[in-house]
């Protein structure tokens, strides 16, 4: 346990070890929470840890370059988990993920910010839509709301900082841009991302066997309606 204590207070900054610089790989963030630094290998490490099906793991939450592992109440970390956490995941193959083709109604009432974003990007509306729908996105993780996907792959020209003041209400199914991510709002509610269009599929339904339409690692192609 002493080793864990040291680990948890060692900070996130790289530590000098002789001539080599090694980053801290994991640390406690609560007595039941472990934060794992995963960088570009987030999906691979999340998939690998989930695949172990270790009884002490209550939940795994992948995010932007990190994974939060939550232990069951009162459970201790097993030797297997300790070993899995310290492994280098660089060599792990990433699963290919399911490909989803999702039709988008771009602009107008469905995408209130599209014209403004296109102007900022120095494109006309058609070029913006083409640029947004020409690439394949990858679901990096879900968060914010149940079923809200953070999609990687947005062309750099389309990156846009979040709105200065969030909208009080964004319609369910809105396709939105927040920084370097594209996302889709599963339910209507407040939102601070720029709206470019809307989809007509249910992103999240707790009554379905698979409540979230998109899972971490899935791939998405948008098709203009």
């Amino acid at each position, binding site marked *: 346990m002493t080793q864990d204590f040291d680990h948890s207070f060692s900070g996130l900054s790289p530590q000098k070890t002789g001539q080599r610089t090694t980053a801290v790989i994991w640390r406690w963030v*609560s007595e039941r929470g472990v934060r794992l630094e995963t960088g570009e290998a987030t999906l691979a490490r999340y998939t690998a840890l989930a695949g172990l099906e270790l009884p002490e793991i209550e*939940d795994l939450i992948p995010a*932007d370059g*990190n994974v*939060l592992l939550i232990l069951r109440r009162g459970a201790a970390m097993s030797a297997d988990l300790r070993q899995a956490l310290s492994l280098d995941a660089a060599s792990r193959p990433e699963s290919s993920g399911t490909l989803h083709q999702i039709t988008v109604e771009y602009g107008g009432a469905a995408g209130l910010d599209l014209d403004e974003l296109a102007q900022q990007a120095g494109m006309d509306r058609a070029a913006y839509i083409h640029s947004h729908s020409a690439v394949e996105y990858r679901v990096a993780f879900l*968060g914010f709301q149940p079923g809200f996907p953070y999609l990687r792959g947005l062309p750099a020209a389309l990156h846009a900082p979040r709105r200065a003041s969030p909208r009080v209400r964004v319609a369910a199914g809105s396709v939105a841009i927040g920084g370097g991510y594209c996302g889709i709002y599963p339910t209507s509610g407040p939102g601070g991302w720029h709206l470019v269009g809307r989809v007509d599929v249910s992103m999240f339904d707790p009554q379905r066997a698979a409540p979230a339409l998109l899972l971490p690692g899935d791939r998405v192609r948008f098709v203009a309606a």
Partner: protein
Amino acid sequence: MIEVLRAGLCDLVMDQGRPGYGALGVPAGGAADPLALATANRLVGNDRGAAGLEVTLTGPMLHFPAGGVVALAGARFSATRSSGAAVPWNAPLALAAGESLMLGRAKAGCRCWLAVRGGITVPLVMGSRSTFLPAGFGGYQGRRLQAGDRLPTGEAAAEVSGRVAELAARPDGMALRVIAGPQADQFDDAGLAALFCTPYRVKAASDRRGLRLQGAAATHRRSALPSQGVMPGAVQVPPDGQPIILGWDGPVTGGYPVIAGVIAADWPRLAQLQPGDTVRFATIAVDAAQALAVAADSIGEWG
């Protein structure tokens, strides 16, 4: 069946939650003090995982047309029943057919839990009967109770327990115990001193998603960072420096620096904070907190 004659401020059907869906963006949720609900369930002969009611600040008036056996645990509320007999806490309470139970205001603390023999048998959603208000699913039609609602109840698993189970007293006046957060090193000395050495007041805009605090600004160097997984108890600090302790129905990812994490053994104390209360923070070692968590859980084990 239980009929709601008058709703309280926020009566929610809760069980032990739905852990395991964090990757879908769904928090575990469930009773804010799962051991208190488990204790109430034990008293009425239910399984630990049966659904009951979580009552916040002001309770409901409930009618039992066919009678029933209930138990209350958690914060003490003013309470009366139509027969005029006493309403004990931490003990089974038999209600005659046609009797009503009236819960008033919390005398101290914020939340109590009511278990009913047989449990509240609303449908399971993603493996749980807990209400998840932010997305409006689970519990009773995904919402807080309203007058006129009729809650289905089921069959009990075991005999009513005659024992009075007292949860271990929790040191309410003491600081909330925290483990340094993943971004603690991004706070300057003044910010760290503010959080760990000065009191904070719980703001009215607090709910199961998070407890918003008001006090000395916990200043830090960065206001935005890559999204990270977060769990209940995480102390997030937005750019204004006023901390938010994430609650049971909080988001599973966040983009604000996390300065500390309230240990799970103290989450039940978070459940009893009401607007205007004062909190302080004190650090604890991870291994000491893990030992506490094991001890706390053993209280709720079936004896």
